[in-house]
């Protein structure tokens, strides 16, 4: 049997939530201290001006109410007849031979599966809620210790206090997983998702993770307050795809951070298609010499959607490279805000950092704000950035129409071509196809 607590993130709801979980002491203590911080920290529009408040400058959440959403109560796993949490199927895993899959519904874990051969080699994959009880000492060193700071702001504190329906991948030293692993979180109308993804690759390990979210009702309200923690060990290789495809009534707040070790490689691709309002901090820290991170972003907005992404490429060690490419297309009255920073520490000589954000404005009243930035303390580095915003070229539309395409087909083709530069970077064919199809379906005809 499953249930949710009374609506509202109240002290009573939190105590009920905590009592239902039977977790190790260290985790309960972490939740309690984070809950205290959540109660004490101000909402962005109530906080005193500070550099951190700059993140919220273009994102108005005065209409967001904590008291409209429930905390999950973890009395049992969410039920599902077919292993998937809702009638809404995932997009990314179609036709793939998966090494494992894990699902969650309304922040409660559903059934998870992992190739037994990988489990025998020490790979951990599945529900973080379950595995933190059976493998607590192995997980404790990574959970909210090195990547995500629970005290960063009110939402990170709330997440650390109430995360539930989390998922974990732990790949031991030297283990290479050839097939992708799939994580899928779904949400019912009016519910909350406090999912936490923890991905740890030890030295020399390799894996591909496809993570995605979806709502069972395209327009219903909901809350996602989540986090992603990624630790890529020395010489390890991780390809991580994260598709946010919530319904248009969902508030999406997320902190996502990856630490990339010596000579390790991370390819991190985000797709942002859904939500009513999204505020995401996506940080990559290059913490080992020779580390490399490639960050790709695909965004498509419509209606009154507001997506606000804040990226940080933090070069902490020498000889690291980072390359960020975000591309967004906007329809209706939607808005995308991107603030990107390349930060180079004093010791991070021979850094090569790049960031670029391109936006295609498909309607008269959509708006894109691109704010790249550099903060460099070393004196022997190569860092650059660029940003563009523009409309579809009418001459290109005319050219395509002159060859028999309708205006809508022409625009769809041009939008697809706009994203192709990012798609070309994605090695997993099903992901390329899924993102391309999802965007193609959303393109409307406009004047």
């Amino acid at each position, binding site marked *: 049997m499953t249930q949710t607590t009374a609506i509202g993130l109240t002290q009573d709801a939190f105590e009920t939530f905590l009592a239902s979980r039977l977790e190790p002491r260290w985790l309960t203590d972490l939740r309690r201290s984070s809950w205290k911080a959540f109660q004490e920290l101000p909402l962005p529009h109530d906080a005193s001006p500070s550099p951190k408040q700059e993140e919220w*400058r*273009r994102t*108005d959440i*005065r*209409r967001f109410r904590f008291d409209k959403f429930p905390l999950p109560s973890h009395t049992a796993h969410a039920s599902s007849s077919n292993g998937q949490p809702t009638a809404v199927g995932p997009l990314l895993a179609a036709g793939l031979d998966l090494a494992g899959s894990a699902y969650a519904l309304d922040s409660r874990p559903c059934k998870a599966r992992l190739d037994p051969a990988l489990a025998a080699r020490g790979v951990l994959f599945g529900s973080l809620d379950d595995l933190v009880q059976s493998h607590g000492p192995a997980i404790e060193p990574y959970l909210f210790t090195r990547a995500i700071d629970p005290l960063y702001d009110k939402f990170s504190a709330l997440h650390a206090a109430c995360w539930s329906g989390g998922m974990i991948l732990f790949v031991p030293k030297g283990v290479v997983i050839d097939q992708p692993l799939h994580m899928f979180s779904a949400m019912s109308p009016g519910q909350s998702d406090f999912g936490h993804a923890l991905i740890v690759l030890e030295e020399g390990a390799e894996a591909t993770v496809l993570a995605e979210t979806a709502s069972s009702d395209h327009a219903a309200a909901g809350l996602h307050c989540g986090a992603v923690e990624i630790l890529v060990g020395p010489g390890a290789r991780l390809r991580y795809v994260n598709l946010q495809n919530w319904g248009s009534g969902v508030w999406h707040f997320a902190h996502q951070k990856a630490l990339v070790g010596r000579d390790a490689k991370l390819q991190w691709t985000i797709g942002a298609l859904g939500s009513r309002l999204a505020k995401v901090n996506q940080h990559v820290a290059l913490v080992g010499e020779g580390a490399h991170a490639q960050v790709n972003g695909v965004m498509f907005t419509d209606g*009154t959607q507001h997506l606000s992404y804040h990226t940080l490429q933090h070069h902490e060690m020498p000889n690291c490279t980072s390359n960020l490419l975000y591309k967004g297309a906007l329809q209706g*009255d939607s808005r995308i805000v991107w603030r990107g920073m390349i930060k180079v520490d004093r010791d991070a000589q021979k850094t090569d950092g790049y960031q670029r954000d391109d936006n295609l404005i498909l309607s*008269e*009243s959509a708006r894109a704000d691109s704010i790249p930035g550099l903060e460099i303390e070393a004196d022997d580095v190569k860092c650059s950035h660029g940003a563009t915003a523009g409309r579809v070229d009418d001459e290109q539309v005319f050219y395509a129409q002159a060859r028999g395409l309708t205006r809508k087909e022409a625009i769809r083709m041009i939008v697809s071509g706009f994203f192709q530069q990012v798609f070309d970077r994605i090695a997993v064919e099903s992901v390329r196809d899924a993102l391309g199809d999802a965007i193609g379906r959303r393109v409307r005809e406009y004047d």
Partner: protein
Amino acid sequence: MTDVDFERVCGVGDLPDPGKQVFELGERYVVVFHVAGSFYAIDDVCTHDGGPLGEGFLEGFTIACPRHGAKFDIRDGRVLCMPAVCGTPSHEVKVENGEVFVKIIERPKKKYVWG
């Protein structure tokens, strides 16, 4: 247009003259002004940077955004001064029996032109 669309925001005496206050109406925040004996309402959004006009400096019929100083005419939302380049939506206001009512007017967003 029906009276049903008007929503009460405050009493006439609740807002000094000159004065302003922000109200939540439906899906938006609106600043209601009381200037020279009349009431006006515009969106609480500067079209330049999304700044909160309700926290701005009111002088005559002009409100200045507290962030970068863009100015708007409170009577019709017209933009008067850079760095904003398009107006902010204005809404209908009526006063009846000592109460102030606002009706949200949904208009297509203006193109980025002066006026």
